[in-house]
């Protein structure tokens, strides 16, 4: 019983919840926009679409350890992106993103977007191909602009795919561990900027051997995920009605 109260009043636990929500907000927005955009482009392509899909899928096959090793160097202060931006004069000083609490999580979300956008693209593409062409033809006859067609036909028709992507993102994303474990200490860095709930739980269980407390944290997190999933499904259902 004491574990519960400690858990609910533990500022570090809430900090980790905040961090992961911050991360997921970035990740979900980035992947949604990018993979929907790429899917729309791929739908128009007649030749070479398969080649592009194959390429976009490659990061999917690599493990999180490999992707994080790559990604962290790519966006790091001595990596190619910052070297390029520095020489081009866009950046004045190297950005040590792992120590800057405002951009740590967005950067991790960016690396994860690079890894995962391919699979969402394929999901959206399958959805786009399934939309009746007659709907677009009718709208065109009525003089709807491209933007109106996208907003009033494409998006509502893609609803099942979008819901699926959002729900799986939340369930998997809130349990992020390897990404932060590899690059930060068990407290997620000096300012706990990269502390995620599962990392915190892992530290409590396997570093401090406080299994009871870790179990309570696990239950709290699971409850939260469950609640968020329910809210998402409810919101979507209301939209359909």
């Amino acid at each position, binding site marked *: 019983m004491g574990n519960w109260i400690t858990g609910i009043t533990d500022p570090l636990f809430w900090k980790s919840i905040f961090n992961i929500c911050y991360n997921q907000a970035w990740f979900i927005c980035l992947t949604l926009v990018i993979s929907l955009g790429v899917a729309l482009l791929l739908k128009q392509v007649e030749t070479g679409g398969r080649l592009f899909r*194959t390429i976009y*899928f490659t990061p999917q096959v690599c493990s*999180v350890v490999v992707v994080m090793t790559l990604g962290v160097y790519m966006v790091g202060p001595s990596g190619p992106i910052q070297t390029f931006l520095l020489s081009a004069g866009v950046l004045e000083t190297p950005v040590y993103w792992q120590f800057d609490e405002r951009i740590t999580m967005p950067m991790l979300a960016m690396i994860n977007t690079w890894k995962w956008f391919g699979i969402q693209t394929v*999901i959206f593409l399958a959805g786009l191909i399934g939309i009746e062409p007659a709907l677009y033809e009718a709208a065109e006859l009525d003089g709807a602009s491209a933007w109106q067609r996208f907003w009033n036909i494409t998006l509502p028709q893609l609803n099942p795919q979008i819901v699926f992507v959002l729900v799986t993102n939340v369930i998997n994303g809130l349990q992020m561990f390897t990404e932060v474990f590899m690059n930060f200490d068990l407290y997620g860095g000096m300012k706990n900027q990269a502390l995620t709930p599962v990392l915190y739980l892992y530290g409590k269980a396997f570093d401090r051997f406080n299994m009871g407390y870790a179990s309570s944290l696990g*239950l709290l997190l*699971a409850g939260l*995920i469950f609640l968020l999933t329910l809210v998402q499904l409810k919101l979507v259902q209301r939209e359909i009605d």
Partner: protein
Amino acid sequence: MTSNVRTSYIIKTKIQKNLSRWLTYLILTIGAIVVIYPFFYMVMNSFKPGPEIAHDPLSLPSTWIVRGYVTVWKTLNVVRLYGNTIIVAGSVTLLNLFFGSMAAYALAKLHFPGRDTLFKVMLGTMMIPNILFLIPTYMIIYRLGWVGHFRALIIPGAIGVYNIFMMKQFMQKIPDEIIDCARIDGCGDLGIYLRIILPLARPVLITVAILTFMGAWNNFFGALLYLQDNPDKWTLQLGLYHFRTGIPTENAEQIWAATTGISAPLILLYFILQKQFMKAFAEMNLK
């Protein structure tokens, strides 16, 4: 006059169409470069001397060296890491195919009381976040004395509800008539499963095999939990993780050599079997 206007209109739309097509390809190509560049960078830097990576990360190697690969080969027990990973990922995949297909057959084609309830309960467990099972599973495996052994990863991973679900959905589409015919000809359940269901379910078995193998090959968290204290049992992911932290910048080429060596086989396999991989990913998500 009108025909003139019309032709100019047609030409205009044609130009517009061409332009938008080139723009589409341009954006897609930029995307492809963004995806490929890190891999290119990884392979290039694995052939570069460490200090050069630090000073000039963008350049091609001025001298091509394989020192990184040689050192990785000497310091990391690469053969053992590969062997361990193949043992774990291979067993998990085979066990999933074996148990999963049998369970799916029973759920799809056999009639027994409580079948649908059982299936619903199984589906319900998929909604529970994995994190809830972390500590209890660890405690059980710890008490069994399995920590530090492959079975800590293999046995809990032997059955995947999602795999059963995918296989069941597929097997349901196999017509009952074929099964009835076989039964009239004196075929038992085992015979039907082995001679009819399994050959017909080949596509979904391949999908499950690919997804399971990839998941097990890339599983870092499980290896960290159970195999951490026993370096003889480390898998590739765990090996790379430990290797990565101990390398100073002047030997950075070793990191890239190790990363290349570890990710290359799966990427190659992906390019060879890309059709099957694509299908597997697409099916995984379309419930």
